[in-house]
């Protein structure tokens, strides 16, 4: 997390709504955001068993439009956007020349020559500058974060609840696809995406409708006990699902290959920013790898704690904490590739003590199909 000292704290259109609901607020990447309402554990459980509603309007949006839009997306991001059809989205990485992450993002193909990127709040302006500085194609990038609010409704009951506010055939939207349509009378981009490991939707719409959609969704979901959820639960949910968080698992010093994201790194699509470096890394060796671990006693290995293998410091925890669903303490860490096999015993340094843990495969949690 970054701490903003000079810039003014930014607020989503729902800021006063969150405060009225009694949310505990936190500065996240320069945004004043709800950390929790009723409590991280109950919000987490709601998403795993019923549904939760998140204000994720802090997320940034960048629009790429013009004849060369695909060329620009292909050049700056590592996944192969030529494989997307209109109405489809995928996860990708915005790359430096060294094949490291400027950011991670979702690429939505709206139409030929028209893409909408959803990027991390704190990185939005930097991402935009980066994309513009590499734009030698016949296309234009626009930083349109202020044009959108975004709500995420996540959980096994999300579809049922959202159905009550729309005539769009939600069941026909496949995972990582999207469509345009009205929710509660408001024209939205409705995507079947999320950051929780559950089924659910993320809807994008003009900020002036935020309060209406927020209230209408909570109302529509009241019989399912849909509750507002904050960034605290968002973090425990994505950790269980083994998803990366920028600034933790991935940053300017890590590559997709190290982060276990080889599947978004499409070297065969042709040259892109960092592709030479990534090809070389793939040819020679990936020296460190992101792994999952579980603690073997009740103590919690948290972000930044040292990881020891055979008594020697071998890496750091990137994200760690309790898993409310699995009822154990889990985390992710970078370790030397030669010691990255599941089952390998490790120790986490917790306030001067070496506490036993063991590497396990990712993700920690997979939703029942």
């Amino acid at each position, binding site marked *: 997390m970054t701490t903003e000292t000079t810039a003014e*704290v930014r607020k989503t259109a729902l800021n006063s709504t969150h405060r009225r609901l009694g949310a*505990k*607020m936190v500065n996240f990447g320069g945004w*004043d955001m709800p*950390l*929790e309402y009723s*409590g*991280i*554990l109950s919000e987490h459980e709601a998403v795993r068993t019923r549904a939760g509603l998140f204000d994720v309007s802090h997320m940034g949006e960048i629009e790429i439009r013009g004849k060369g839009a695909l060329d620009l997306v292909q050049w700056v991001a590592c996944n192969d956007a030529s494989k997307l059809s209109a109405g489809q989205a995928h996860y990708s990485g915005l790359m430096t020349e060294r094949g490291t992450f400027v950011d991670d993002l979702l690429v939505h193909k709206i139409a030929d020559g028209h893409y909408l990127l959803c990027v991390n709040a704190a990185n939005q302006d930097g991402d935009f500058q980066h994309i513009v500085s590499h734009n030698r194609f016949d296309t234009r990038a626009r930083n349109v974060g202020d044009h959108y609010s975004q709500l995420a409704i996540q959980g096994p009951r999300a579809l049922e609840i959202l159905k009550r506010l729309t005539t769009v055939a939600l069941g026909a939207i496949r995972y990582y696809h999207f469509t345009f349509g009205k929710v509660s009378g408001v024209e939205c981009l409705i995507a079947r995406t999320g950051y929780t490991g559950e089924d659910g939707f993320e809807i994008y719409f003009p900020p002036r409708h935020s309060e209406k959609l927020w209230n209408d969704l909570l109302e529509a979901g009241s019989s399912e006990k849909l509750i507002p959820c904050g960034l*605290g639960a968002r973090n*425990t949910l994505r950790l269980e699902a083994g998803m990366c968080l920028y600034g933790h698992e991935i940053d300017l010093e890590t590559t997709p290959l190290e982060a276990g994201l080889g599947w978004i790194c499409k070297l065969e699509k042709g040259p892109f920013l960092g592709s030479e470096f990534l090809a070389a890394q793939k040819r020679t060796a990936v020296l460190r790898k992101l792994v999952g671990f579980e603690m073997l006693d*009740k*103590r*919690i290995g*948290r972000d930044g704690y040292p990881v020891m293998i055979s008594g020697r410091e071998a890496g750091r925890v990137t994200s760690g*904490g*309790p898993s*409310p669903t699995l009822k154990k303490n889990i985390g992710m860490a970078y370790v030397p590739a030669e010691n990255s096999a599941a089952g390998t015993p490790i120790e986490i340094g917790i*306030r001067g003590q070496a506490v036993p843990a063991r590497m396990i495969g990712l993700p920690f949690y997979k939703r029942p199909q």
Partner: protein
Amino acid sequence: MYPADYRYTKDHEWIKVDGAVGTIGITDYAQHELGDVVFVELPKVGARIKAGESFGSVESVKAVSDIFSPVSGEIAEINSSLGDQPEKINHDPHGAAWLVRIKLDDPKEANSLMDAKAYQTYVDEKAQEQPA
């Protein structure tokens, strides 16, 4: 809300003195700031603890917080029920979720700490520091 017969520290611990024994816990303000408590680490009976020094920790989903002793003494009893039910700290921080009882070196030592009224003022000021 803060019991009148307890004393309080700036680090949000409370102590209740009964003769030569002091019972120590964390305040309602502290549990609220932490959020859902999932783990408590306490010292062993017989351990010496010193005023102002950390003798254990309380962990929530989000964070870990050291517990600092309000006074000096020797651990006489720990609340072992918190091992299985750490969430009691969220529900009853001033009562059932006491952390430790200590044999006080100096039963008068706690008198220098904040009383309930002073502590209430202290946390009210803290709340005002938060951005509106």
